[in-house]
C-alpha cells in the first residue's frame, strides 16, 4: 500500500497491529531520471531521530527525502523511557500529546537493596511543568506517531525499501546510491544527515569510526504482559542484589498495555543463547512477580552495552545524528532522548542556512554543541554502568558502602547511581552564547534549555514553551522596547502583556525583574539575557547566535 493511503486508525491500533504495519514500496520519479535528482536535504534512516529531524525541517518549510532500508517500525523492544525534554520537542513537532496520551507517565523511582527499600526519589518534585519527568512508551508506538505526523506534511518524502549502498561526499553535497526492490538509482543531496543507527552504514562507507568502551556485562531484557491487575505501581524500581536474582541488579518499568519491562543483569559469563530461552526466562520473571502472577512473554533479548562516539559529527555536508554519532549504555535512557535533541539542534540550523539567513558556519556549530552533549551523556551512562557493574574489588567495596549508608543517610542516596536519567545538556561553552554582563541567579544561564512555566493567555491556560516562536524569541518581562518589533526572525513575547505569569513561576525560574530580557533560540536554548538591553546588544547577540 502507498503509505499515504494508510488509514489514520492503523496508527491507533494495538501494539501487534502497529508493529505489523507494512509501509509499501512506491517507485519514485527520481528512479526514472537520466541524471541524479537534486535534493536540498536527504536523511538516511526513519528511526526516532531521522523522523523527528524530517518533521522539524518540513514544518519549517523545507523539502526532505528520508531513505529507509526497512519497511516496518522498530521491532520488538528497544527504547521505552522518553524524557520531559523529548516530549517538549515532540510538542513542537505536533506529536507530544499523542505520546503522553498513550504513554505511562511517571516521576517516582525506588531503589532496593536485597529485600529492603533504601529510598525513593521524585524526578520532578516541583509543580508547574506541562510534561512529566518521563513517559514510558514502546519505541514502535513513538515511531508510529512520528510516521503518522510525517505523512501529514507535504514536504516529507519517506522512501521505504530504499537502502543506501554508497555515499560519495563532495565539498558541496553528496551523491548517494540507493537500492530498491526494482533496481538501483542515484540521488544528489546538498546536505546529507545520517540517522542510520548504531551500526551506521554511512559511517562505514565514509571510513569513519566511533570509538569508546564496551562493557563486559550482559543484560537480559524481558517484556512481559501481565494478566489481570498488577500490584506494582507506575514507578521505576531498581534492585541491587535482590533475593530473586542474587548478586546482580534488576530494573522494572511499566509500559502501556499492561506490559512490564524487566532488565536482569546477568554478568559476563552468561550464555546469551541459553538465557534467551523462554524456559530460563520464565522462572526468573516468576520469582520477581510472585508465584501467582500470570503473564505472557512478549519479547526477550540479551544485550551487551557500549559507550561510543565519533570524534566529529559534522564532515562537510555530511552530518551524523543519533545512534550513528554516539551510543550510550541504557542506564539513564539517554539514547533516543539525546538523539532527538541532536535533531532539534540541527533542524533550525539547516533551515536557516538553506533559507540564506545564515552561513554554513551555523551548521558547523551543531558539531561542538552536540559532541559536548554526547560527552555528558557518555560520562553519566559510563558512571552508572560502573556503579551497577563494579569493575574491581575496591569499586564494589565503595559501591556497597554507599548502598549501606543510603539506608539512613541522605548524602549517600545521592551517591547511589542506578542511572542518572536523561536531562538536556546545558551548552555552557557554545560559541552561539553571549556571556552574561548582568548578574542573575538560578540555572537559566546562556546554553540552558528554557524551563517551562504555566501562563495564561486571554484568560486561557497555556505554557511558556508553547508560546515561543518558531525562530528566535525575545522574552520581555513587561513592555518591549519599540525597536524589538523590527528584529528579523524574532517573535517578541511580553510577559505580563501578551501572556500572564499568574503564579509568577516564569519570573522566579528565570530570576526576572521588570524589563529583564531573555533571547531564546529556535531550539529553546537560552542564548543571551540582560537586565535592560540596548538594541545594539540584542542585535549583536542575534548575530552571534546565527554564527554570523
Amino acid at each position, binding site marked *: 500500500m502507498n503509505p499515504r493511503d494508510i488509514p489514520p486508525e492503523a496508527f491507533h491500533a494495538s501494539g501487534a497491529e502497529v508493529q505489523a504495519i507494512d509501509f509499501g514500496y512506491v517507485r519514485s520519479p527520481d528512479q526514472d531520471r537520466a541524471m541524479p535528482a537534486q535534493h536540498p536535504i536527504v536523511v538516511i534512516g526513519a528511526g526516532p531521530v531521522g523522523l523527528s529531524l524530517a518533521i522539524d525541517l518540513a514544518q519549517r518549510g523545507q523539502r526532505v527525502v528520508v531513505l529507509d532500508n526497512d519497511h516496518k517500525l522498530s521491532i520488538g523492544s528497544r527504547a521505552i523511557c522518553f524524557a520531559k525534554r523529548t516530549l517538549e520537542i515532540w510538542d513542537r513537532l505536533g506529536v507530544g500529546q499523542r505520546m503522553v496520551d498513550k504513554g505511562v507517565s511517571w516521576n517516582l523511582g525506588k531503589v532496593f537493596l536485597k529485600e529492603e527499600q533504601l*529510598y*525513593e526519589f521524585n524526578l520532578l518534585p516541583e509543580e508547574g511543568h506541562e510534561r512529566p519527568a518521563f513517559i514510558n512508551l514502546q519505541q514502535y508506538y513513538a515511531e508510529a506517531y512520528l510516521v503518522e505526523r510525517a505523512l501529514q506534511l507535504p514536504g516529507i518524502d519517506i522512501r521505504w525499501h530504499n537502502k543506501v549502498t554508497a555515499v560519495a561526499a563532495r565539498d558541496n553535497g553528496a551523491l548517494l546510491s540507493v537500492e530498491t526492490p526494482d533496481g538501483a538509482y542515484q540521488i544528489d543531496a546538498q546536505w546529507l544527515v545520517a540517522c542510520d543507527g548504531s551500526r551506521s552504514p554511512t559511517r562505514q562507507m565514509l571510513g569513519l569510526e566511533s570509538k569508546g568502551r564496551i562493557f563486559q556485562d550482559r543484560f537480559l531484557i524481558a517484556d512481559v504482559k501481565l494478566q489481570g491487575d498488577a500490584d506494582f505501581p507506575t514507578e521505576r524500581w531498581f534492585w541491587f542484589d535482590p533475593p530473586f536474582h542474587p548478586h546482580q541488579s534488576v530494573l522494572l518499568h511499566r509500559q502501556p498495555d499492561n506490559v512490564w519491562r524487566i532488565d536482569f543483569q546477568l554478568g559476563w559469563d552468561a550464555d546469551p543463547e541459553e538465557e534467551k530461552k523462554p524456559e530460563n526466562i520464565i522462572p526468573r520473571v516468576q520469582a520477581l512477580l510472585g508465584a501467582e502472577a500470570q503473564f505472557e512473554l512478549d519479547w526477550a533479548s540479551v544485550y551487551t552495552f557500549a559507550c561510543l562516539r565519533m570524534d566529529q559529527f559534522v564532515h562537510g555536508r555530511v552530518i551524523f545524528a543519533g545512534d550513528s554519532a554516539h551510543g550510550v549504555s541504557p542506564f539513564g535512557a539517554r539514547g533516543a532522548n539525546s538523539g532527538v535533541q541532536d535533531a532539534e539542534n540541527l533542524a533550525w540550523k539547516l533551515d536557516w542556512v538553506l533559507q540564506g539567513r545564515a552561513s554554513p558556519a551555523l551548521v558547523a556549530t551543531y558539531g561542538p554543541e552536540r559532541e559536548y552533549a554526547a560527552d555528558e551523556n557518555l*560520562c553519566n551512562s559510563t558512571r552508572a554502568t560502573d556503579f551497577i557493574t563494579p569493575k574491581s574489588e575496591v569499586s564494589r567495596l565503595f559501591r556497597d558502602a554507599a548502598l549501606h549508608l543510603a539506608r539512613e543517610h541522605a548524602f549517600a542516596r545521592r551517591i547511589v547511581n542506578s542511572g542518572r536519567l536523561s536531562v538536556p545538556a546545558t551548552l*555552557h561553552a557554545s560559541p552561539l552564547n553571549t556571556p552574561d554582563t548582568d548578574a542573575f541567579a538560578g540555572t537559566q544561564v546562556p546554553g540552558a534549555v528554557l524551563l517551562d512555566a504555566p501562563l495564561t493567555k486571554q484568560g486561557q491556560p497555556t505554557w511558556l514553551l508553547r508560546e515561543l516562536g518558531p525562530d528566535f524569541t525575545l522574552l520581555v518581562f513587561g513592555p518591549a522596547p519599540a525597536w524589538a518589533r523590527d528584529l528579523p526572525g524574532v517573535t517578541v513575547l511580553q510577559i505580563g502583556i501578551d501572556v500572564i505569569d499568574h503564579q509568577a513561576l516564569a519570573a522566579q525560574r528565570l530570576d526576572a525583574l521588570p524589563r529583564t530580557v531573555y533571547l531564546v533560540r529556535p531550539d529553546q536554548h537560552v542564548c543571551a539575557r540582560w537586565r535592560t538591553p540596548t538594541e545594539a546588544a540584542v542585535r549583536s547577540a542575534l548575530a552571534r547566535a546565527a554564527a554570523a
Partner: protein
Amino acid sequence: MLNTQPNLLACDDFYEALIAAHQGLSTPESHAMNARLVLLLANHIGDQATLQHALQLARGSVVPTADRRTTPAITPVVPTHAVAA
C-alpha cells in the same frame, strides 16, 4: 586545599578510637567500615578540590583521571530524595 598541619587535637584519642572501632571485625568487615568512613568524611568535607588533594596525598603518586576526553561541568541531574518509606 587540604589542611595537613596538625589539626586533630586529641590525636591519640582518635587513633585509639579508630583501632577500637575495628575490634572484632573480620578483615572484609573492616574494609567495608573503612569505605563507609571515607564516604562519610568526604561528605563532611564537601569540597571537591580538597578531596582531590587528599586523594593525591593518600596515593602518593599521580591520581589517574577517569578515561574520558573531557570532564565537563555536568548538568546536574541528582533528583531530590525523599526519605525511605
